[in-house]
């Protein structure tokens, strides 16, 4: 038997337009917590999904307990003792806790000729594993009645019930309070003492340095290295993650914020758990960063302003004129543009061409006689934008889904530029984009501000916010908790406001 419980060697995984993993590797020792680090889009989650059998890797091998194995799917992984707690939980809220733990592998019993689910055994076993994760709850209760952190514990209980030897935790603390994080760490420590190998994915440096034994760093789908966690510094990790000096990450900015043009007052969602009483102002030519933890309702607030979500109260004014926004069309007509967080789900029109994707929001401008589209004008628009934003594409007829993430994002920016809006809301504009293309996106954002556009930028990358914003607005649990000047902002003062729970 080798010294490793599980090894992933030379893993390659390609998605249309992106090489997500390029000879990545990971070596897990028994009874350790192994931190997996890298920027968004570095390939951490993809690598874990390969280990858990959700993705099939194009190349590479997995050696588990000294044997080469092929993991066919999540159930196969669970049967082998590999369990994963996903970043986005996948609960079945209408079923009981016990059923959620045992879904897909219910204990059974024979009743005459029939095989049925053994509910009694299921709930007894569930009670035992719930105790192990310190969750005092009736296993017969509906899962939907639990909080997010409790649901996460149920997921861990699921892993424990499978008697797992490898447990993957993908950003487990992103929506937890400080007390809940402590409780989670206690459980992680107990599992480690039992000999479980834990893969711990997180962006929070202090957590990593506190809980992990080893650290593996990835960048752009590639393996950078593995180090003993003792003696590592935050600076060292960031340099390895980013791959170059921090000072060159962001373009110089020459925008000069002018007078206040865009104003939001007391904006409140119809959902009491979402954004409430949000008030802020954006100046002409200003980049306003928006910081907050997952669950801070930043996206929800911005989607509310753009008319994608309903609000129950609040005023939006642009240059002193009140705007009525109940659907995106009204926001667009008022001169607001929005790049949504999830490019695939709410941004690109995948099976359509680049030309269609660029022109869809501004078709009214290219009409002949009020009803017929002028293909020549549209082609001209696309060609201008492809040149201006240096979009790398074979032709304007190419389907957008075959482009890389960065180029897709540029196409979406072109879509809005065609409308010449005054306010840009950018929700995680560089998510899933490789490092080189990120810089180009930053240049575009800086240029927009220089031209006098007001830019609102949500980002979960602290360094990006600090490097790009004139001012940073911080949110916590649906409320705006404060503003920090871009020059004075640092990780500490942002986190202090971002964790100001009521």
């Amino acid at each position, binding site marked *: 038997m080798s010294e490793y419980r599980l090894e992933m060697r030379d893993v390659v995984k390609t998605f249309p337009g992106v090489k997500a993993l390029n000879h990545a590797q990971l070596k897990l020792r028994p009874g350790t917590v192994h931190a997996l680090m890298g920027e968004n889009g570095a390939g951490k989650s993809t690598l874990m999904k390969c280990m858990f059998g959700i993705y099939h890797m194009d190349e590479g091998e997995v050696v588990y307990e000294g044997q080469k194995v092929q993991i066919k799917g999540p159930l196969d992984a669970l049967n082998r003792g590999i369990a994963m707690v996903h970043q986005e939980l996948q609960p079945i809220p209408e079923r009981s806790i016990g059923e959620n733990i045992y879904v897909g592998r219910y204990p059974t019993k024979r009743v005459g000729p029939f095989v049925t689910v053994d509910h009694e055994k299921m709930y007894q076993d569930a009670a035992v594993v719930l105790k192990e994760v310190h969750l005092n709850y009736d296993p017969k209760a509906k899962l939907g009645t639990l909080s997010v952190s409790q649901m996460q514990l149920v997921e861990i209980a699921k892993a424990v019930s499978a008697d797992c030897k490898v447990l993957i935790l993908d950003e487990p603390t992103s929506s937890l309070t400080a007390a809940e994080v402590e409780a989670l760490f206690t459980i992680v420590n107990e599992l480690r003492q039992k000999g479980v190998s834990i893969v711990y994915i997180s962006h929070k440096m202090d957590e990593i340095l506190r809980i992990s034994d080893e650290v593996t760093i990835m960048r752009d789908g590639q393996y950078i290295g593995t180090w003993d966690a003792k003696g590592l510094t935050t600076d060292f990790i960031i340099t390895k993650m980013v791959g170059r000096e921090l000072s060159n990450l962001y373009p110089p900015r020459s925008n000069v914020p002018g007078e206040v043009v865009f104003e939001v007052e007391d904006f409140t969602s119809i959902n009491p758990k979402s954004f409430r009483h949000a008030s802020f102002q954006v100046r002409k030519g200003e980049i306003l960063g928006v910081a907050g933890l997952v669950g801070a309702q930043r996206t929800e607030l911005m989607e509310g302003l*753009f008319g*994608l979500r309903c609000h129950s109260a609040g005023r939006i004014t642009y240059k002193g004129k009140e705007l009525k926004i109940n659907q995106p069309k009204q926001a667009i007509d008022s001169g607001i543009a929005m790049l949504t967080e999830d490019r695939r789900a709410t*941004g690109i*029109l*995948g*099976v359509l061409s680049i030309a269609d994707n660029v022109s869809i929001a501004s078709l009214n401008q290219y009409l002949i006689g009020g009803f017929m589209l002028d293909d020549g004008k549209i082609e001209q628009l696309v060609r201008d934008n492809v040149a201006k934003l240096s979009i790398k594409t074979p*032709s304007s007829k190419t389907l957008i889904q075959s482009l890389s993430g960065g180029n897709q994002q540029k196409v979406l920016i072109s879509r809005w530029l065609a409308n010449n809006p005054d306010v840009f809301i950018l929700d995680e504009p560089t998510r899933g984009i490789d490092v080189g293309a990120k810089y180009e996106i930053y240049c575009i954002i800086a240029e927009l501000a220089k031209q006098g556009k007001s830019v609102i930028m949500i980002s979960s990358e602290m360094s990006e916010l600090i490097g790009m914003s004139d001012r940073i607005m911080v949110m916590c649990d649906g409320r705006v908790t404060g503003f920090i000047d871009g020059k004075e902002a640092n990780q500490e003062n942002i986190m202090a406001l971002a964790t100001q729970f009521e």
Partner: protein
Amino acid sequence: MENRKITTKTVKNFLSNNAIIILILCLAIFVGFVADNFWKPANFKNLIINMSPRFIIACGVSGCLITKGTDLSAGRQVGLSACLAAMMLQSVDYAARALPWMPDIPWPVALVLVVLIMCVFGAINGCVIAFLKVPPFIATLGMQTIVYGLCSVITGNDPLGGFKSSYSQVALGALGPIPYLAIFAVLVGVYMLFLYNKTRHGKYMYAIGGNENAAQVAGVNVPATIIRIYVLASILYAVAGFLVGAKAGGASTATGLGYELEAIAACTIGGVSTNGGVGKVGGILIGVMVFEVLKICLQFLRVDPAYTFIAQGLVIIVAVALDLRKYLAKK
């Protein structure tokens, strides 16, 4: 520039993407050799006449399919349209007129009236799908039954006949060598080409099919577009029903039975994806033609009509399976 090299892979892709079309064309060539009259002009004219109303119906359904919907009420709407047209256009001297008070109206007026009446059903379909968010499959299945019931009520389940000759002539006549039916189909085809490729409505339709949420974010009025699509579909069913009635020389509650499935099959064979966002008018035409060629081939091979249904059903399933395979491969 795009890569145009011919490799084994591109040939393989072409074959699997067009498998059904190729198979059925091979069948046609085979039948051409074994049967005598297959390549005769009369058979060709028969093909064109059969294709025309079906192409119009398929054009209607295509918009629903491109936006990831469907319209199972298509066939029954065609039937109701045929019955409505029949009731308006029976000869004044025909003894068993369904509506004895009906004045003698010219057929274009009747066509317009039928279209206007059928718009209501399309608007209801569209509103139920766009606003009440009922899945199109269920909404139009319900509408299918409603329309059938209405058709039974207004006709009293009696078949309608005794059309005036000007109405029958719409289907039977020809302009030189071109049957009037084909002219209707060509006009619809040209209109659809224009609508799908040159108008905002077309672009919005493809956008909604490609990604409804993204279309909404881009400012597309999704409900309005969907309602327009279902209303247009009903207009086309009305035209098709009008022609089907004229062609058959009679109409009854059984008219149009199963036409929706033929139309959906033709669209799918012609490359309209059930995954949404993809589909061309030219493809629909090919799909309709291939499906009709299949039927004619089976007739010429003297296959029992009962078996013909089995063959058609299989073709529908295989066509959709092949279509979805293209998307599965990408995961």
